[in-house]
């Protein structure tokens, strides 16, 4: 068994940011990585995906984008290259192809079994990702045989899909991007949309992510929201990493010929049943967007920024007046169901009593238990905790905490 003071599980942006912050404080550590650096970005994302945040916002502790296209959006090979460059620049001590099999408590610290031997440490940081598993609803078990089911982790490109109709379930960034791509490839596409949030890619001549940053939305802390659990679960904004489309919302999809209907409520006797509540979900989305634009306008008013365009309000979502409520799944029209119903982390190897009754890791701003931290979860400490640009702030806070605890135990 190898002993080291601090271990980080995962060498994606969270693990690498953590490693950099520990190195900056002189704390010896190692990163255990199941595959290679940026493994999820290399192996678990669809081909056309680009980051939803612009290159200039890809700031990590001690590292930033200095390429020719600061307003562009990184492709998957580009983000993998970016993180490898970061690991090299930080001299991160990564043990690649070291898959964690179990973590248990051991003599005031933690014992980690891997496929390449056992480790022991006093301090452990879980940075293994927020999107390891696709959250697929239980009603997927009712899908009749003969219909292919695929989730967003398994999807690569439309070439994978059987010819014919596709039902895309979910209308966050993933669902809208994939519905558009599959429709553009010539498939008949139906999108089942529950709660969703539309925003323009650009507003008043600036990227929406710039506005979210300067108005302080990204930096919102956990004690500034009244229902943290809800804030942690909000669907991702309907965005794509591209300036081509002003909106990637339901109206855009409808104009492309995608049939939009309500949330998938049940599958009964081989028939998909959809909610009749789409109009309210569209209304909620329009109201949320307009509140955000109000916040932006109010902020812009106080700053008198040069080069900012005029305030704008957009037409409401062109919600279909009578969206379909049922869809037979046995008539051959729909050949594939694509679940774009969210992701969750995989902590199945963590053999510690740190989960709530729904199986989610319990933590306060990343602190799980004495000597045990998590990093990179949605709204863990600030609203942008799970974004590339947000993880560094959380990593620095955890590194400070580790330093403080070490000082205490040494004293």
């Amino acid at each position: 068994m190898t002993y080291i003071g601090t271990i980080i599980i995962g060498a994606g942006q969270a693990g690498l940011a953590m490693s950099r912050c520990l190195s900056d404080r002189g704390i010896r550590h190692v990163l255990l990585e199941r595959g290679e650096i940026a493994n999820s970005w290399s192996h678990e994302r669809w081909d056309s995906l680009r980051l939803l945040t612009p290159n200039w916002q890809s700031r990590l502790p001690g590292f930033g984008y200095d390429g020719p296209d600061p307003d562009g959006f990184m492709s998957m090979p580009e983000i993998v290259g970016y993180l490898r460059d970061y690991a090299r620049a930080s001299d991160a001590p990564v043990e690649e192809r070291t898959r964690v099999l179990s973590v248990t408590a051991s003599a005031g610290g933690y014992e980690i079994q891997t496929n390449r031997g056992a480790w022991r440490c006093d301090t452990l940081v879980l940075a293994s990702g927020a999107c390891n598993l696709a959250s697929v609803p239980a009603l997927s078990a009712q899908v009749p045989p003969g219909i292919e089911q695929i989730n967003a982790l398994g999807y690569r490109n439309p070439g994978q899909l059987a010819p014919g109709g596709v039902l895309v379930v979910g209308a966050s960034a993933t669902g809208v991007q994939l519905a558009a791509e599959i429709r553009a490839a010539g498939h008949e596409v139906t999108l089942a949309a529950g709660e969703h949030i539309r925003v323009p890619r650009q507003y008043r001549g600036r990227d929406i992510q710039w506005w979210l940053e300067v108005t302080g939305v990204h930096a919102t802390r956990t004690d500034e929201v009244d229902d943290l659990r809800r804030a942690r679960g909000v669907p991702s904004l309907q965005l794509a990493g591209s300036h081509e489309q002003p909106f990637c919302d339901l109206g855009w999809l409808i104009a492309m010929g995608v049939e939009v209907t309500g949330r998938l409520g049940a599958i009964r006797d081989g028939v998909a049943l959809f909610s009749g509540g789409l109009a309210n979900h569209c209304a909620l989305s329009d109201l949320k967007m307009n509140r955000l634009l109000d916040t932006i306008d109010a902020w812009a008013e106080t700053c008198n920024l040069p080069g900012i365009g005029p305030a704008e309000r957009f037409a409401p979502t062109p919600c279909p007046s009578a969206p379909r409520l049922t869809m037979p799944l046995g008539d051959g029209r729909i050949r594939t169901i694509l679940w774009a119903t969210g992701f969750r982390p995989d902590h199945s190897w963590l053999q510690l009593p740190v989960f709530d009754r729904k199986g989610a890791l319990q933590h306060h701003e990343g602190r799980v238990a004495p000597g045990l931290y998590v990093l990179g979860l949605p709204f863990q400490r600030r609203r942008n905790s799970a974004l590339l640009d947000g993880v560094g702030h959380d990593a620095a806070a955890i590194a400070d905490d580790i330093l403080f605890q070490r000082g205490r135990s040494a004293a």
Partner: protein
Amino acid sequence: MQQNVITKPVSNGVNTEALIGARGAFEQMPEAAAFTFRSTCDWNEGTNNTNTINGFFGLGENQERKQTFRIDSDHPEVFAAADRAPTPPEIVLAALASCLTGGVAAVAQHRGIQLHKMRAVVEGDLDVRGILGMDQEVRNGFSGIRVAFEIDADATPDEIRALVAQSQKRSAVFDILTNPTNVNVTVA
């Protein structure tokens, strides 16, 4: 993201503190949040019948009310009935209106918005060829339901729209009507 400047306490007659307290209690004891509601319907004559509603299960035990409520139902004269009470589909529309209206009051209280007047008009379209078994293509139930709210409150039009949207989001009857529910009917 908007904050109202509250000069005098808002009162819509909803005890939101108690509801927020209940949320905290159910967090600790989720089994207490499992309620079962019931209505008992006795046939009177023809299409006329009477529901009596009193007990329900909740907070881990059977709950009895101080009084028993009645809801009568019948069919109108155009269906050759005696028209002693509203039809069951009208009671469903009424349930939706009540649920959304109560929800708006609760959300307004929580958001510190004073209501002055509120009215909801609910309409449901129903092609009776469905229930008469005349056309397989026509469903028995409503083909569409519209709810029109008129609300006078100390709030902007968008804040009022947000109240109505949030009320739908948290409404039991809106959910019951817009989503499928498994219904099992047995005979003793």
